[in-house]
């Protein structure tokens, strides 16, 4: 058990961008919300998984919608509280703790506001160990955990509870409701017992993103090689170093898709890397061959500053280093790969673990 103060939140938000793999939304607003909630209601207790009772009831919380809208229509702050209470009365049980569904990007810090306001602890884990674009893409789905009863709330006080036959239907319905709510809503879902959570959660990810954030901050202060320190702190591999020479974008079914082409420098000179993205980075191809793909993480960092670069800001001329980071082992099972493997995203290839190509 430990307490999260504003300083911890700064580091978490910084590190979360690395696990955001180019997407997951800008944590800036979530960070400000977390910090001001902690300033008003006191620090948030972070519990590790083994500190959770088996019969505890944990409900992950998150923001859903368009990141651009969230930068404009800021939350009221208690949207999720009402949804939370609605869920409690539906379940007939008090909720013990909340957690992050997605440690990459904005939703790493969203649950902090909930935890601070309700004075409940947050669990040191998440459901992805990274960012993914759709709601059913959490490890809980593989373990048969239902996303419903699913609560969604807006700033006006509206809330809805969904019951669906599977988690993909929840994704479909909640996406429509989110649009009606003005494209920014708070959600609470995947209610789970402590016993179940210990099976499906990706453990210790809040501490991981905080460590990454602190590493970046300290490396910057010490004027050290930020990219290399990030790589070490995530146990990743350097896949490529080069310069972005072309970025192509298009919008399909509400997703920002595209490719970025990079030309190699130093030991990668004469190589070309093509990065495919759909909100998040999906696959990296070197000279036409896929070398890293989902569910492993592909993170693009500014070679000079170590700043994680989102898919929205990819631009010609950036000097970047591409890291491949092994995903959590739960994604590496047949069930995991069915949910978020390369074939789900339209690549007709078998997934090859990043460390098999780049280990040693």
């Amino acid at each position, binding site marked *: 058990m430990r307490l999260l103060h504003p300083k911890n939140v700064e580091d978490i938000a910084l590190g979360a961008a690395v696990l955001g793999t180019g997407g997951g939304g800008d944590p800036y*607003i979530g960070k*400000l*919300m977390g910090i*001001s*909630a902690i300033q008003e209601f006191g620090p948030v207790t972070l519990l590790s998984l083994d500190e959770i009772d088996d019969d505890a009831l944990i409900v992950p919380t998150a923001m859903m*919608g*368009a*990141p*651009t*809208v969230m*930068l*404009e*229509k*800021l*939350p*009221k*702050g208690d949207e999720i509280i009402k949804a939370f209470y609605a869920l409690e009365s539906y379940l007939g049980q008090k909720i013990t703790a909340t957690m992050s569904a997605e440690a990459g990007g904005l939703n790493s810090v969203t649950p902090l*506001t909930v935890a601070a306001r309700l004075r409940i602890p947050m669990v040191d884990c998440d459901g992805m160990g990274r960012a993914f*674009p759709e709601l059913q893409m959490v490890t809980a789905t593989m373990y048969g955990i239902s996303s419903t009863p699913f609560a969604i709330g807006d*700033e*006006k*006080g509206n809330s809805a509870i969904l019951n669906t036959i599977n988690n993909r239907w929840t994704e479909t319905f909640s*996406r429509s409701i989110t*649009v009606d709510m*003005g*494209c920014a809503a708070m959600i609470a879902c995947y209610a789970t017992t402590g016993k179940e959570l210990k099976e499906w959660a990706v453990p210790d990810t809040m501490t991981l993103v905080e460590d990454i954030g602190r590493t970046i901050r300290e490396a910057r202060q010490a004027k050290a090689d930020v990219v290399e320190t990030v790589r070490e702190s995530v146990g990743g591999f350097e896949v490529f170093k080069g*310069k972005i*020479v*072309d970025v192509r*974008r298009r*919008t399909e*079914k*509400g*997703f*920002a898709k595209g490719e970025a082409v990079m030309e190699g420098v130093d030991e990668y000179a004469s190589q070309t890397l093509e990065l495919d993205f759909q*909100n998040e980075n999906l696959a990296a191809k070197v000279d036409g061959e896929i070398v890293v793909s989902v569910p492993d993480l592909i993170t693009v960092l500014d070679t000079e500053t170590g700043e994680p670069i989102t898919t*929205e*800001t990819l*631009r*010609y*001329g*950036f*000097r970047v280093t591409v890291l491949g980071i092994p995903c959590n082992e739960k994604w590496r099972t047949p069930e995991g790969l069915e949910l978020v493997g390369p074939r789900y995203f339209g690549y007709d290839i078998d997934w090859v673990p990043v460390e098999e190509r780049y280990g040693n």
Partner: protein
Amino acid sequence: MRIGVDVGGTNTDAALMDGERVVGWHKTPTTPEVTAGITTAMRTVLEESKVPAQQIRAVMIGTTHFTNAVVERKRLMQTAAVRLGLPATECLPPMVDWPPDLRDTIGNHKYLVHGGHEFDGREISPLDEDEVREVAKDIKSKGIRAVAISAVFSPVNSSFEERAAEIIQDEIPDVSVSLSHEIGRIGILERENAAIVNACLGDLASAIVDSFRKALKDMKIDAPFYLSQNDGTLMGADFAEKYPVLTFASGPTNSMRGAAFLSGAQDAMVVDLGGTTSDVGMLLRGFPREASVAVEISGVRTNFRMPDVYSFGLGGGSLISDDPLKIGPESVGYELTTKGLVFGGSVLTTTDLAVAGGLVDIGDASAVKHLDSTFVGQALDEMQSMVEVAVDRMKTSAEPVPLILVGGGTILVSRQVKGTSEMIKPDHFSVANAIGAAIAQVGGETDRVFALEELGRDEALAQARQEATDKAVAAGAREETVTIVDVEEVPLAYLPSNAVRIRVKAVGDLALLGDG
């Protein structure tokens, strides 16, 4: 004839222009009290060119008064921030992410009321006029005369901001109101921040406008004056009193506009080499490309149209250390002409290397004869490489583009820069900024979200173009000269309804000057 003046960190430059011809120019050190340097530069250029003041038809000034005031936290007004958005946005009130000292300087007066729109134009909640009136009374009772008004999605629908302004002006007759949709873009905190910064500069803006008016009168110049905006267009004195924040970063913009004018190139990279740092920017159809991410002003995040400029630590006064070879970012700055080796000083600078390498003949070349030629060669290569990396960083494609070099440090670059099609060092390169200020164009811009499912892309673009054109004409452009210089479409991610943010910028010649 007209005079352009640009205030830089080191020098204040003035250029006297007759149509497209540069009649004369003058450089003078920037003074702590900025207006003094401006008048010195103007007086001198008139005297040296022997042009009577009566022939001046317009004066254009790019000044740092307002940026300095924010950085120094001086002469800022007590300001009320009124946001229309409840029940949304409550958890993050105005100025939540400001440096505390700046927030305290302007009083931290903040009000949240109902109103605001959704991304698609629906109301979040209706505007409660009584609520706004109560807020206005409270503001009045505190003696506050500067108000910034923001509303959620006001770039989509500005009616609530405008109505709230009417109510507040009705209650407080001498109030000055800044509306966020007139200044910034989508991203409420950043847009609101820009509006608040603008509001707190109100009194200073009036004072500066008065002091310029008086200075011109003292010089017997009977002509209107304009201030340079950071998008490369001008604003008149009345407008400047209302929107002082739009002068921020007009310096780099003026240099780039001047470079375009002097070289005749419309789409090109510009490197402005100064004494301590250099700026690189990209000209698109004669105007600087604008930054698309949040830009911090003295610790405050804003998102209004700042030029997209990359600065790096190379200038004519940059210090050189060997073993390992390192250039800058430390610099002797304006003391180059006393501290550099070729000027009889004892510090090795980039300018000394340029002399040693035979790129330029200034000062006493014998003072750098002792330098090892291999070392000089390596250092010049490194300087060249710094420029090349910076230029490449700012390019948008691999296609070679023309490169225009301006500023006093231009002497440092002699070889063709990689990735460029040609390298232009125009005449008068050292005062490109003042010449940029003297270019008489005004503009209009629109930036909002369109739902393409209802409107269709062509119709949405046509609407946006018309809005921008109308704004340019309203700002004083001659209608027949207005052209669209920039169109940007950004699809909003995670949104199935095909919403697109469209930004259009239109520019035309200042009507007042006629064909001259």
